[in-house]
């Protein structure tokens, strides 16, 4: 099943949840078809992600994806993040995600990409 323990763990205890003190970049994204929302904050220094914070409302997949991605992008450069695609998110989530849930998992990445634009 899609809801493996790791995914559920990130859903119940999302990493980097909350606001940053002095974010340098931020963005909000919403999925109009299901009401999911994410507000994302980044602190960049010399083109690398130093800190990540997010608050979100949504399904288990979007929250778990946000948590996993927020961990993944720490220390990454803006260029590296700009190259991230759906497949990378699916891999972070364990390699299994049916097409109906792609939008849920992509929402956090869209927010990150909007923030660094």
């Amino acid at each position: 099943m899609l809801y493996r323990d790791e995914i559920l763990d990130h859903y119940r205890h999302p990493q980097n949840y909350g606001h940053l003190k002095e974010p340098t970049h931020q963005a909000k994204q919403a999925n109009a078809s299901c009401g999911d929302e994410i507000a994302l904050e980044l602190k960049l220094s010399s083109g690398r992600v130093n800190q990540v914070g997010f608050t979100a409302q949504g399904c288990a997949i979007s929250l778990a994806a946000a948590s996993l991605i927020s961990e993944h992008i720490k220390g990454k450069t803006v260029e590296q993040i700009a190259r991230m695609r759906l497949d990378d998110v699916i891999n972070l989530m364990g390699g299994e995600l049916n097409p109906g849930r792609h939008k849920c998992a992509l929402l956090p990445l869209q927010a990150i990409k909007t923030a660094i634009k």
Partner: protein
Amino acid sequence: METTDRLMLGSVEQLLDEEVGLVAFSHASNVLGTVNDPVKISRLVQAKKLSCKILLDASQTIPHNSVDLGKLGVDAAVFSGHKMLGPTGIGVFWAKHKLLEEMNPFIYGGDMIAEVQQEKSSWNEPPYKFEAGTPHIAGIIGLGTAVEYLQNQGMEHIWQHEQELTAYALKKLESFVDEGWLHLYGPAGTEERLGVISFNIDRVHAHDTAQVLDHYGIAVRSGQHCAAPLLSRLDLTATARASFYLYNNKQDIDTWVSRLGEVKKVLL
């Protein structure tokens, strides 16, 4: 809307004036299952003696009950093929003949013209004047076969069957509602209600509910059901929705109901 999930018909009168060109409403809600009374609504509209036309969205009722469009007081109606065992990409626009004659075509192509001259042309008669170009032949044949199949099953029989399943399901869900972890939306009983049940499990997103049920071979829809304004009126972000048709039986409902607890176990 009233709190009972019914339309507030009292407001129809106030909403109508000379500026209104079209009154369009759904025969039944695909989210709540509420069935509206087109005869009643048409009468309210016609009593105002305005020039507006009345359009009925019958996509939710034609597949499930015997509907005589000519007796509902509406000028036009629409319904889709894929909601009645037919193919996708095809639907029906029905209107009174007089209205079809008055209306101008909006797509031009083969078969929709009667005569073409250098300076002028004239339209073919309805329905041809609205069916320009190569028709969706396979879709038309498929939808025709679906209609025949449903009529052979008997539309009243289908309606009865769905009513029975809905009553059975609502009864089975009662205890979960009482325990406080299941929320149901829509009219309380089966009266003037379709066989659709929108629901949410407390603190679980509808997409997650649907995903867990899917794992057990149970297909429910989740999201806003193409009815975002209604969902926001109900202060909801999404619902999961079970819908019944002639191929469902009580065993299906037992399976669905028995797995709802599983959703809770996985996600909470």
